[in-house]
């Protein structure tokens, strides 16, 4: 069975260790196709997620409590289908929150078994953790030098939408059907930008091209589907099969970086060195209409990093609209 995950903080390794296929919902081919005219205040991402979950009745869907809109989207969905779970993703890092996260992983395991999953052995989990950690390490190492679009595709692959994942070849997270080399072409004359914010699905990847056409280049993809979705790590944790669940908790909970955290200082601590080392000169804040959590960070990003910030809002049509293209061009022009 396919298990659609709505957050990178739900361990896909845990799903696969149960013998099920895990996919980040934001890269689903039909994700943007689900977009419809929105009711007042409804977040476009939450709405697309709910619609996609409704249409994929054969798949299990795991929502999270990371935002009000997804939480209430789940409420709506849960009235009509049972193969959906709302994972309580704590916002704080207190010991009680850590305990809650662990308990939620155990409950997720129970849910996966109800969906036809196997009971994972410690060895199966250990194997998944090792393979995924290796893949993440490779992706993180490639982040600085990989062209933005190519990198987004590689991360999408990692999150479970590539053919290799379909066929179970999990140890190869960076397939290269695309001949584009992983090293960045000499774009030294382009303005380095960071792209920060909500999930960026495949239909929106033309944004990378539009940035380049306008004279910039994305050197840091810190969208929810970009580099910071690769933060979990199991390095330094016991590899003893009996403590694999503890390792899973530590690898995710202790390295979680997201806007919904309270306080969300880890996000800024994660961004700071990367913005500096990659000489970023401007930030594009990418949000979905109705996403309060990212939208509220605009001014803080500007003040904290002393960088100009351009807000681009994902529309229902899931493409950068002409007006925004003009704003993007003007933004880049102001940075030259």
């Amino acid at each position, binding site marked *: 069975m396919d298990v659609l995950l709505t957050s990178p903080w739900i361990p896909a390794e845990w799903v696969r260790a149960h013998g099920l296929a895990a996919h980040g919902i934001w890269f689903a081919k039909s994700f943007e196709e689900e977009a419809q005219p929105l*009711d*007042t*205040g*409804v*977040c476009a991402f939450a709405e697309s997620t709910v619609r996609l979950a409704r249409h994929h009745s054969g798949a299990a869907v795991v929502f999270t*409590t990371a*935002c*009000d*809109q997804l*939480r*209430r*989207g789940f*409420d*709506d969905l*849960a*009235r009509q289908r049972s193969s959906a779970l*709302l994972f*309580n993703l*704590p*916002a*704080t890092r*207190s*010991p*009680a*929150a850590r*305990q*809650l996260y662990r*308990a939620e992983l155990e*409950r997720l395991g*129970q849910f996966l078994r109800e969906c036809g999953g196997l009971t994972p052995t410690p060895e199966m989990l250990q194997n998944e953790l090792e393979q995924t950690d290796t893949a993440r390490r490779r992706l993180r190492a490639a982040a600085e030098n990989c062209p933005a679009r190519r990198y987004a595709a590689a991360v999408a692959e990692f999150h479970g939408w590539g053919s290799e994942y379909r066929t179970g070849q999990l140890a190869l997270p960076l397939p290269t059907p695309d001949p584009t080399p992983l090293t960045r072409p000499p774009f030294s004359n382009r303005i380095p930008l960071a792209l920060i914010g909500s999930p960026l699905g495949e239909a929106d990847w033309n944004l990378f091209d539009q940035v380049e056409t306008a004279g910039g280049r994305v050197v840091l993809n810190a969208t929810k589907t970009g580099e910071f979705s690769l933060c979990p790590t199991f390095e330094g944790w016991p590899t003893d099969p009996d403590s694999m669940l503890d390792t899973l908790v530590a690898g995710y909970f202790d390295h979680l970086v997201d806007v*919904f955290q*309270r*306080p*969300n200082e880890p996000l800024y601590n994660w961004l700071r060195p990367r913005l500096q080392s990659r000489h970023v000169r401007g930030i594009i804040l990418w949000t979905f209409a*109705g*996403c*309060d*959590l990212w*939208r*509220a*960070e*605009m*001014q*803080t990003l500007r*003040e*904290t990093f002393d960088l100009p910030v351009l807000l681009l809002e994902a529309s229902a049509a899931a493409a950068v609209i002409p007006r925004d293209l003009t704003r993007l061009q003007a933004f880049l022009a102001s940075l030259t």
Partner: protein
Amino acid sequence: MNSAPQKLSLCGWDARYDELRRLGLREPAYGGTLRRHLEGGRDFQLEHLQFDNSPAALRLWNFLLTENSRLHQARARGEKIVGAMKDLGTVPVLACALPGLRAFYPDGTWWTPCLMAGHDQLLPPARATGIDASFCPVRALLPAFLNGEQFPRPDLLLCSTGAICDDLSAIAQRLEHLGHPILWWEMPRRRPPYPGEKPCRLPGNLIAPQLQVDCVRIELRRIAAALGQLAGRTLNDEILTAGIQAANQVRRLLTALRNKVYTAPAAPLPALEMLLAEMLAIHFCSDHEETIALLGELLTVAQTRSQRSQFVIPASAIRVFWVNPVADLRAMNLLEELGGRICGSDFMFTHTLDLIPEDLPPLEALARTALADPMAGSTTERAQRIARDCRANGAEGVIISRISGASHCAREGGIIREEVQRTIGLPVIELEIPPEADAMLPALRTQLKELFKIARLRRT
């Protein structure tokens, strides 16, 4: 001093106040004319509201409208001020148990733009802090913190997080970035126990896994330690037990008042005053003893009027259950002007109306009550309580008022409407009521009339 119940304008209250004074009205220290709030350059909306004519209502309004100045006075006396955000009813129970602490909700600033009819200039500066009109009116708290002209800056600022609305979470985070440190505490999203999990009964006829209650209890212990440090005294079980008993005293009085007013054949008190009375349960408007006295006086008014069959709203009025607080208080007047009355409410804090268990260890009891927050659980569960209360109080229609920009309003209205219609078949309407609803009033009027028309047809 008692006269036939009626509604008065602000001008009407001028004459009524003089009359009451001549008759020997005795007032608390914060008493005085209602008009003075207007003449002090504040609370302009008072000119457009209709008030109950009882001395208890005068006391209620004065109590509410002097909260900020009473907080400043408390600070001047050396008391410590605790700002609680979002949990609506939990932290104040802890804080008020300790002598020398006063808790209030900065979130309450959301009513200021309404009361001051925009003269407060709180919402435009919020935009300058990066929080624009796409957010809920609670954004008014940001400029209030920055200009320090509303409430005193708290000595300790707390905010529940996790299963809370995105607007408040985002705004509070922005506040922290602006240099106001916050002690955050985790509120899990309440859910039914999974097979094999130990269940725990909560107030409000709810159930949750014990591990969620444990999480909240551990978090509340952290909060209790911080409050104890601020007060210079350990918040132990004995002190907290007394605090819970004091909170329950308020809840019992409020329950009696709601029962009396909402189930009476006609309404002995108006909807607007009842809305304010319900708000008192959240943090006792920064004065627990005065809240008890005030609720007692309101209850006496309701009982006396009922005994004498003197009502402010007639028995023919359509009985309406109201969901969510209104940003523009005039909506409550309008409802009654058009022939409705309130017979029940869910102003987003029903967990603050339920008694805190007194037969449990106090932190466990408070944790269970906190987790019963209607906004922390599923909307369907909230809708089920609404349906139960509608049935119990004989509601003829349900009004869900949307709060402009609020993240929870985007979907909850539809779910509540479907659940209420499915289970009890009542007509339901959704209204959007912004802080200054002038432009919306004609549309609101039409929607309310339509609801009442349908409800009247159902009577026949």
